[in-house]
């Protein structure tokens, strides 16, 4: 996604974070888009766990379905209420 490249260029982030870390966009109430997805650890309509190339992300919400998954990109449809990265948490 060009958006991420533009943001990274703006802030001058390092290579590791740029290519392997958690990169996602949340559209409130609609969907969430994730890059660098290595696998889907678990999936249900209220909770999804994805493993990234570096780290993992836990997503909680309602009515989840996988709109698209392939080539490291995951488009998760549904109402996202909480996203936790690795061992920390972010809402």
């Amino acid at each position: 996604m060009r958006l991420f490249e533009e943001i990274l260029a703006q802030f001058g982030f390092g290579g590791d974070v740029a290519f392997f870390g958690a990169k996602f966009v949340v559209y409130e109430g609609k969907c969430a888009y994730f890059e660098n997805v290595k696998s889907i650890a678990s999936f249900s309509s209220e909770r999804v766990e994805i493993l990234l190339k570096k780290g993992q992300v836990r997503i909680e919400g309602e009515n989840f379905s996988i709109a698209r998954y392939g080539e490291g990109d995951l488009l998760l449809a549904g109402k996202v209420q909480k996203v936790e990265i690795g061992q920390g948490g972010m809402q």
Partner: protein
Amino acid sequence: MTPLFCDILTIDSVAPLRALDKLSKKGIGVYKVQKMGPTRLKLRVKSKETEKIFAIFSGSCYTVTKIRSAGLKRLAEFFLRRMGIAVGVLLLLLLSFVSNFFVLKIEVIGSGARYREEAEEVLAKSGIDLFCVFRADGAETARGELLSLPGVVFASVVKRGCVVTVTLEESEETQVPQRKTQLLAPCDGVLEELTVFRGTALAKEGDRVSAGQALVGGYFETENGETFQTFAVARCSVLQSYSGKYFSKELSERAESQAIAAVHLAAGGELLEAQVKAKAADGGFIYTVTLKVRIVSAVNL
């Protein structure tokens, strides 16, 4: 987002999500993934990748089942199974497209629609006729000819679909009424008075005149003898004797008055004199009424 040509598959396994990871690593995208149970996923994939997916999972612990096609592929399969419908639809589209080039109806509208027959003749001469291919240059030629029709101030030839519409509009100007050029005697009688403001007197007061006789001509002559046409402006009065009969069952002054009134009504004009003679007949009386009336007439006054 979801591919136009796709298949719906199910994947059964103890850990069906790993199948998604396996497909992702192989570069195969999955769409609309739904969890149907703890060991089953339902998903969509591009139709061209279905065989590849079966090849990937053959001999593995994942059971892949194709449910059906989806999207446009399903529609295509429907028509392939029913070729007749597809051919029929295509034929219909083709006929609609081809028939658009032909003229199937000609309409003539507008205030000049009474020139329908002439318009159709003009169109036919320009090569535009029923069941013929419409030609734009012919339409322009026809339009020019249609403008030469009497009174037509606007003409257009337009084709919409397979209908040619000819619009003809006539001038809205009111026709100037024809002015009377001479004064004619309104009835038989004696010319009592003749007043001429314009034109040439053809009779004089006291002359016996006939109904329709020209009393004032629409011209005048100069001293040199030249004649110029114009319109007469004149007034005359003619004394007419008018007779009529009236039947009444009684012989009385009232019956006499009624007889005069009835005959006057028929004669018209201004009553000057009346003479009445009564004669018995058929169970009543016949009144013979002779009136003298004045009839006035004028032209361009």
